[in-house]
């Protein structure tokens, strides 16, 4: 009895490592090329970024103070910039800066149910021109037509 139980316990312990694949210890977080500093020290960002973003939301939406330092838009512009092949990661992808950690730590966020998960660069927006594929922005034309720019401008979104 004692021996059987001990063997079972040891067996279970030894089988534990099999549940984890190699290189899975930490998530692979894509870092923005050519930048070495965020708006706050890395340590602070890791622990407090959610509060910065939430505070920014209140300042902007309730008080009308619109700054760029802690704005979600700026996070995305820098952290989810197009990769070398010109593609931009979707929020569901592990290559998306935000999702790389959130999926690892089982943290569900709802930011991108409303906000864009892709940078401001208009080339990576969904094309507003008809007969393109709305869910494959990388396949849409790179140059924006005058009509599209007009639509963006009237929405106050184009720089």
């Amino acid at each position: 009895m004692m021996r059987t139980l001990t063997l079972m316990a040891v067996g279970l312990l030894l089988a534990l490592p099999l549940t984890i694949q190699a290189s899975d210890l930490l998530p692979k977080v894509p870092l923005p090329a050519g930048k070495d500093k965020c708006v706050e020290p890395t340590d602070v960002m890791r622990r407090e970024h959610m509060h910065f973003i939430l505070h920014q939301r209140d300042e902007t939406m309730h008080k009308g103070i619109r700054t760029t330092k802690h704005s979600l838009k700026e996070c995305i512009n820098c952290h989810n910039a197009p990769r070398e092949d010109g593609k931009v990661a979707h929020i569901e992808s592990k290559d998306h800066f935000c999702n790389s950690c959130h999926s690892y730590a089982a943290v569900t966020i709802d930011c991108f149910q409303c906000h864009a998960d892709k940078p401001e660069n208009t080339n990576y927006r969904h094309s507003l021109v008809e007969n393109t594929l709305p869910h494959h922005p990388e396949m849409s034309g790179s140059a924006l037509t005058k009509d599209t720019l007009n639509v963006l401008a009237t929405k106050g979104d184009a720089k």
Partner: protein
Amino acid sequence: MSALSVFYAILFYVATLILVIGVVRKITQYARTPAPLKIPTTPAPTTQTGVVLRMAREVVLFSSLFKSNKWTWIFGWLFHFSLLLAFFRHLRYALTPDCFIWPLIDLELVQAAGKYAGLGMAAGLVGLFGRRIFVDRVRYISSPSDYFMLILLLAIAASGLSMSFVSHPDIVNLKGFILSLITLGWNGWVNMPTDGLLITHLTLVILLMIIFPISKLLHAPGVFFSPTRNQVDNPREKRHISPWGKALDDAEADA
């Protein structure tokens, strides 16, 4: 690895060994302890299936406690159920997203429930602590270890809640550290974060793991070995006799 990480890695391995070996030894001891008499508390089920159902009701709903004392039941059950919810939230630190149970752990519902369950744990523990202080009969039989277990669990809940609601630790690095411990360093080691609350929480949990096999918390495996709860009420259909009792009987018959 940093000195702190090495220290805690060793502590975790020692505590895990003590917990596993200690509990297995205790279960073996319980399983070997003779139950010479047929003493199910009546009304008791008359079939084995019935006993399984009775035991399930006992473990899930604490039915005996409910019949005996409503206040103790509500605080005790609140604490234990919250502990279960908190356990499911904590699985995110020990499992990777490719694990089969991950879709459940990843649910917002499970994570949020586990977070607020911390408050349920604290409420239940404060209630049980109050019971030991304000109920005369219970205060009279309370020993220091009874208070100590409540305070230890309360401190674990409080430090855990503080990390959710007051000051966040670096949970991504924490998970890396835990995964490197579970894989026995096979894929390398990761340093643990140095947040004070986290170190407090982990230290208290290590202490809990070490004293679990020699504490009253052994009621967790022990409940399954209660003769008054795990026996079928069939003394007339089937004679209740233990192996050593049968040996005595046989020796007498031979003489």
